């Protein structure tokens, strides 16, 4: 029989400490939607998504209701569109984005990811067309998210793609200048992208995945922070142990929701992503966890060590709680989506350089970072190249989601609203990287036999 303490602990975690399921994401393969006629292909895509995901939102809502656990997002990820679109005799790939957007609106999901391309070793014709169409696709649609994988540990870094993505991001910013450059918030540039990541904007349904699958991403930074408040001043062994135990409980909830959603929708369960994903709500911040460990402000010396401990303990605690773990698993450190990070950036404690260092020890990378509108495409490419190098050399996923907000300067703030939050404009290095970026070609894969 359940004890009152257990019941109340769970309820407290949900009501006071913002424990929630960040997302249920249905991955749908669109490999059978290829056609030489773009309109037929788009229709097949729309039909397939609306058929498979018809009950996704209502099932999510029912689970939310019955278990009393908030499920913030219901999302869809699809096969990278570059693969599906390649066989059609047209280069108007924006049509594919519009078909995805329409399907997503019909089934009522929050986002659809997969307007994507994998070009770590080189481009095909389809990849080229897709990447060129990203700015228009993201500015003309509401729910579509896009990602491009430009590097991998096995292939190295495609510097042509890195250079191009700098220009694509600038173009995205221009086209949505009235909207705080919102299109950039829906575009991620990856190194070592994973195929089963449920988090936007980088979610896509990888080619090794089944026909249809349910992936779940958990959240809960607030719960971890509250747990740490109870062990104030204790040593790091205790800190790590406390985070592990909390992560275990959070993940058990994710596992339950994932299994239940998979059973009700009759779709196989894929993975639980063991992530601490923040939201802009006060009390749901990864930065505040780091500060709870004893740092005056996130971004000061010691932050990287604190984050490394946190990330590792979350994985250790979560991995036993779920039967299949995957995705990006770790602590997310988006700036605009985390009240503590916004605060730290505004106060000057958190800089781009420190964030880059932090990405060496946690998932994702430079995420939701707003930079001045006059930042050049080459500088953005160089930031992407640095982040890709960290991912490639350390055999981990890294990503860049950066927003050069038109007309904004250091010290200004850009509001995105909702889960995307608001971002303070951060300082970039003023010296040029353009000669470096303009070289093009591919940085060879690193060697790992003399690992240091």
């Amino acid at each position: 029989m359940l004890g009152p303490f257990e019941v109340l602990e769970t309820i407290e975690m949900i009501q006071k400490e913002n424990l929630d399921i960040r997302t249920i994401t249905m991955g749908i393969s669109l490999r059978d939607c290829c056609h030489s006629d773009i309109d037929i292909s788009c229709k097949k895509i729309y039909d397939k998504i609306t058929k498979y995901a018809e009950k996704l939102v209502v099932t999510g809502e029912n689970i939310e209701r019955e278990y009393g656990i908030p499920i913030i997002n219901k999302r869809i990820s699809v096969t990278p569109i570059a693969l599906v679109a390649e066989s059609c005799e047209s280069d108007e790939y924006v049509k594919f984005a519009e078909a995805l957007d329409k399907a997503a609106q019909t089934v009522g999901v929050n986002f659809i990811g997969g307007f994507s391309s994998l070009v770590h070793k080189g481009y095909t014709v389809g990849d080229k067309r897709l990447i060129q169409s990203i700015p228009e696709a993201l500015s003309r649609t509401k729910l579509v998210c896009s990602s491009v994988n430009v590097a991998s540990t096995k292939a190295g870094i495609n510097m042509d793609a890195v250079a191009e993505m700098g220009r694509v991001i600038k173009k995205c910013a221009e086209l949505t200048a009235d909207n705080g450059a919102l299109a950039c918030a829906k575009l991620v540039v990856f190194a070592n992208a994973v195929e089963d990541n449920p988090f936007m904007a980088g979610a896509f349904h990888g080619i090794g995945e089944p026909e249809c699958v349910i992936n779940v991403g958990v959240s809960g930074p607030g719960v971890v922070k509250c747990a740490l408040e109870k062990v104030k001043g204790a040593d790091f062994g205790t800190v790590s142990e406390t985070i592990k135990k909390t992560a275990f409980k959070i993940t058990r909830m994710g596992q339950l929701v994932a299994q239940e959603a998979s059973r009700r929708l009759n779709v196989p369960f894929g993975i639980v992503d063991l992530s601490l994903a923040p939201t802009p709500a006060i009390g749901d911040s990864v930065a505040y966890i780091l500060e709870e460990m004893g740092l005056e402000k996130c971004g000061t010396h010691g932050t990287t060590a604190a984050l490394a401990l946190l990330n590792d303990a979350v994985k250790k605690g979560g991995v036993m709680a779920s039967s299949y773990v995957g995705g990006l698993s770790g602590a997310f450190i988006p700036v605009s989506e985390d009240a503590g990070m916004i605060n730290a950036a505004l106060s000057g404690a958190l800089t781009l350089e420190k964030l880059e260092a932090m990405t060496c020890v946690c998932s994702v990378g430079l995420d939701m970072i707003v930079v001045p509108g006059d930042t050049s495409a080459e500088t953005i490419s160089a930031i992407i190249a640095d982040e890709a190098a960290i991912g490639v050399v350390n055999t981990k996923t890294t990503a860049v989601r950066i927003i050069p907000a038109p007309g904004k300067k250091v010290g200004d703030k850009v509001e995105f609203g909702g889960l995307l939050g608001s971002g303070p404009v951060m300082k970039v290095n003023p010296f040029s990287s353009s000669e470096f970026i303009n070289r093009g070609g591919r940085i060879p894969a690193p060697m790992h036999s003399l690992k240091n």
Partner: protein
Amino acid sequence: MRAVITVIGKDKVGIIAGVSNILAECNVNILDISQTILQDVFTMIMIVDISKCSIPFHDISDKLESKGVEMGLKIQIQHEDIFNSMHRI
């Protein structure tokens, strides 16, 4: 199928009666009740059997919630599995 009902708020006359009346109307059997004062807040936890419940889950959830609003309390019903999965390996 079992569910957990939690009532949190200021103690007053008729809380148990109010909740158990709704449950009786819907053919929900009460298996266990415990109550405690937690940091000055009245907390009641009920384990109930909803397998023979005469109305859909979300309707009973709505009824309890509006009863809570009426009495100035927070009343919630949740499937038992959420607690089991979190606390029992």
